[in-house]
């Protein structure tokens, strides 16, 4: 479990101090995939970098499985960092080492004999699907492949936590999806806690179970992804969930319509039949105002905004019906007038 308690980080710059984080409190359970989302400059990178003490907190504590990271000496910290590894937006591979030696690198640092390190690295390359690229140099790989190498490298020391700082931001949507799929399978198979930093809603919707919304250095909302995204309470959260803003043309269109936000969080349903079934079984016609869902593995991820007419009863029924499907959260959207 990772407990971030009252974390504050102030940078001193020549033109005054910048409060990058203010009194941030987040608890991340073991085995979770936790998203931290926010606009550029919100303090996301600062926050992850505080978790492994690449950045020293100005105030507050970071507890990883009860250990206060701030109190570790240099040697203990280096050992702790082998259990909290990290992947980055720009992959940060060693460009003068081939793929295999990149994956061996953290093992080399920990003093594992070469032959053993090599064996393990090859195994990891198999997990990320790059066993045939072992002797190639990073410059000869695509971005997605480089990120896979970085993931293999991050897994080499058998970490308990994987920090991902904008790990998919430099990748196209298809590659992003495949990397997120890989991260999810690692989380499931190896039980590694994953923390994903991103500015993209779709990334959180796709893989995260819990999310914290960071705005201007403070956590404005946190909780279950479905809950937070279906009922964004704060202006900052609404900005992320409805990027079109409060003047959303869809919402402004029909005053009789009420909106339900449906979040698919890995259930076995496919989105379209679900809406069709709603019409057939309950006789409720839903107007899909916005949809961003995708199938990953055998689950559906993403969210939808349904416009429903016909008063409270219909809405209640629709929500109940949708909620019955595993992995689906449906809630009425409170739209400000």
């Amino acid at each position: 479990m990772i407990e971030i308690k009252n974390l504050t980080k102030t940078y001193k710059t020549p033109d005054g101090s910048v409060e990058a984080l203010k009194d941030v409190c987040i608890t991340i359970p073991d085995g979770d995939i936790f998203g931290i989302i926010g606009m550029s400059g919100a303090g996301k990178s600062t926050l992850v970098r505080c978790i492994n003490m690449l950045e020293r907190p100005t105030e507050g504590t970071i507890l990883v499985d009860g250990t206060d990271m701030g109190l570790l000496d240099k040697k203990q910290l280096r050992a702790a960092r082998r259990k909290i590894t990290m992947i980055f937006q720009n992959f940060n591979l060693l460009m003068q080492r081939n793929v295999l030696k990149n994956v061996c690198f953290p093992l080399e640092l920990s003093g594992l004999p070469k032959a053993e390190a090599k064996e393990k690295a090859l195994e990891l390359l198999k997990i990320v699907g790059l066993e045939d690229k072992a002797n190639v140099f990073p410059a000869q790989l695509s971005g997605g492949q480089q990120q896979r190498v970085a993931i293999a490298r991050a897994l080499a020391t058998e970490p308990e936590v994987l920090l991902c700082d904008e790990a998919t931001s430099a990748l196209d949507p298809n590659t992003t999806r495949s990397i997120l799929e890989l991260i999810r399978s690692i989380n499931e198979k190896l039980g590694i806690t994953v923390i994903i930093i991103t500015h993209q809603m779709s990334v959180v919707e796709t893989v995260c179970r819990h999310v914290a919304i960071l705005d201007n250095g403070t956590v404005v909302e946190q909780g279950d992804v479905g809950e937070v995204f279906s009922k964004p309470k704060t202006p900052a959260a609404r900005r992320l969930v409805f990027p079109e803003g409060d003047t959303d043309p869809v919402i402004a269109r029909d005053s009789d319509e009420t909106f339900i936000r449906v979040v698919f969080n890995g259930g076995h349903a496919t989105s379209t039949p679900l809406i069709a079934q709603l019409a057939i079984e309950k006789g409720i016609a839903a107007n899909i105002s916005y949809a961003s869902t995708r199938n990953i593995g055998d689950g559906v991820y993403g969210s939808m905004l349904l416009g429903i007419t016909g008063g409270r009863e219909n809405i209640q029924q629709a929500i109940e019906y949708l909620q019955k499907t595993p992995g689906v959260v449906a809630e009425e959207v409170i739209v400000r007038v």
Partner: protein
Amino acid sequence: MFNNLLSGEAWSEALRILRLEFPAAVWETFYVTLLASLFAFLIGLPLGVLLVAGDKDGVLPLPAWLMRTLGVIINLLRSIPFLILMVLVFPITRAIVGTVVGTPATVVPLVIAAFPFVARLSESSIREIDPNIIEAAQSMGASPLQIIFKVMIPESIPSLISNATIAVTTILGYSAMSGVIGGGGLGKIAMNYGYYRYKYLVMIFAVILLILLVQLFQTFGTKLAIRSDKRLKNRSE
């Protein structure tokens, strides 16, 4: 003064000197250059690493006064013209080699003149590394020494080789200059025949050979730098 430059007599004499004296001179210049480069690197490269790693936010922060002293010494040595430096370090040369004339003796001032230059070149090579890569290594629990030896130096090898080539060709130039005050090699021949005895043809031969040596080092160095760089795509290995 140039009237006897191309006379048959001048040619035959120059060719005789070329045959008799040049092979040894080329060899002397060659080995003095390489030997001085080697020592200059043994001192300069670690200093270059220190200049980067010892920074306030480097991987191995050193006291600010130490870094400042280091910087001042390097700049000072670099600003003294080589000919003057050579004379200035006579005592050191005498202490190490036992004499201040002759080929081995020129190695000392060459090293003293070149290592600050090499330190700055190495520093700039190492600074080219993406700081994110160093941070990634730190995030994996690398110690400062591991970062220096497993990341900073290996990742900057191609650039270090390019800069080493520049250093070697510069040292070659200095070594020729050392002919003025007792050094051996091509510089000495150019001085002795060209300057003191007005045998310009011999001097021109010496200059041509120096140019060829520079070309040789440069071509070899550039090739090596390119070959060593794994960042280049489309390589076959």
